[in-house]
């Protein structure tokens, strides 16, 4: 297609502003778009999306040690004491065994262990109190804690009603059942050149973590205490940083007082 300049001549056709297509494009005017690779090279989009996997033990069965994220969707899984089944998206969103499919990356901020709400209270208490959870990445452990610390509520939550034994209704959860009740493994802090906001394209940096200590943050801090990532950070200039914490949304902080900047 050829885009013509409408100001080329005052005698041009009144249709000069229209796009001219070539003979081979008749009936398929978007041919060129179809030929392009839809993957934007060198750029990734970020979204708040957890990875999850399933752990199962049947009734009247001794609990066992299990390694999760080892088998993806479509693989067979056998709970301890139970029958084998093929994993679906309900059980995991992993599509490759043991690793992310290219070009995905994941910045893990919290580990949460969620038990089905019909778990018997005795089983709940035993499981969260005696089970150790460990996050391994490339053979190294990055998080080790009791399941009762994931979520950070550190304990089971159980509720029930029993007008009679026959109408007993119960519900149990690992910690206070709140979406915010997870054991974050990061704290709110200055973050530069990274936009992990939901459904937002990050186009500034390919790396998830900015490692340049000389980039100024100049986040507003308490009196006589400046917050800079490095002493080499200049004292003047603009000052807007993003911090990301337990709320999973972006907050802006600004530094406006030069006296505090140079304090």
């Amino acid at each position: 297609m050829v885009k013509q300049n409408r100001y080329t001549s005052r005698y041009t056709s009144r249709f000069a502003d229209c796009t001219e297509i070539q003979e081979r494009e008749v009936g398929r005017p978007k041919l060129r778009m179809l030929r392009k690779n839809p993957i934007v090279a060198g750029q990734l989009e970020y979204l708040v999306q957890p990875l999850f996997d399933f752990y199962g033990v049947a009734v009247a069965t001794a609990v066992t040690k299990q390694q999760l994220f080892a088998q993806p969707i479509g693989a067979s899984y056998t709970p301890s004491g139970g029958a084998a089944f093929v994993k679906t998206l309900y059980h995991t969103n992993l599509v490759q065994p043991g690793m992310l499919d290219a070009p995905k990356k994941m910045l893990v901020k919290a580990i949460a262990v969620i038990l089905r709400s019909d778990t018997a209270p005795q089983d709940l208490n035993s499981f969260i109190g005696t089970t150790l959870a460990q996050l391994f990445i490339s053979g190294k452990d990055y998080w080790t804690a009791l399941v009762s610390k994931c979520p950070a509520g550190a304990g089971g939550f159980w509720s029930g009603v029993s007008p009679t034994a026959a109408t007993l209704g119960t519900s149990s959860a690992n910690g206070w059942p709140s979406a915010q009740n997870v054991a974050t493994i990061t704290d709110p802090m200055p973050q530069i050149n990274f936009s992990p906001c939901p459904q937002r394209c990050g186009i500034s940096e390919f790396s998830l973590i900015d490692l340049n200590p000389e980039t100024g943050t100049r986040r507003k801090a308490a009196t006589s205490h400046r917050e800079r990532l490095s002493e080499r950070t200049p004292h003047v200039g603009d000052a807007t940083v993003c911090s990301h914490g337990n709320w999973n949304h972006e907050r802006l902080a600004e530094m406006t007082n030069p006296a505090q900047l140079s304090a």
Partner: protein
Amino acid sequence: MEPILGQLIEQNQNFSVVLDPTISGVAAFTTLAAAPATIFPGTGINAHVYAEGVLARAIL
């Protein structure tokens, strides 16, 4: 010191979460039976482990 924003799982890096209820110093507990004598029927353990965080993927 650089801030810790989380633990990054790069492409082609093996990762896992291990749940181990067998190292508490006592024998691993046995889940309740489906029809116990008490009023709480056992359903086993059905748990999901979530790695919460930010996922980076291709722009399609």
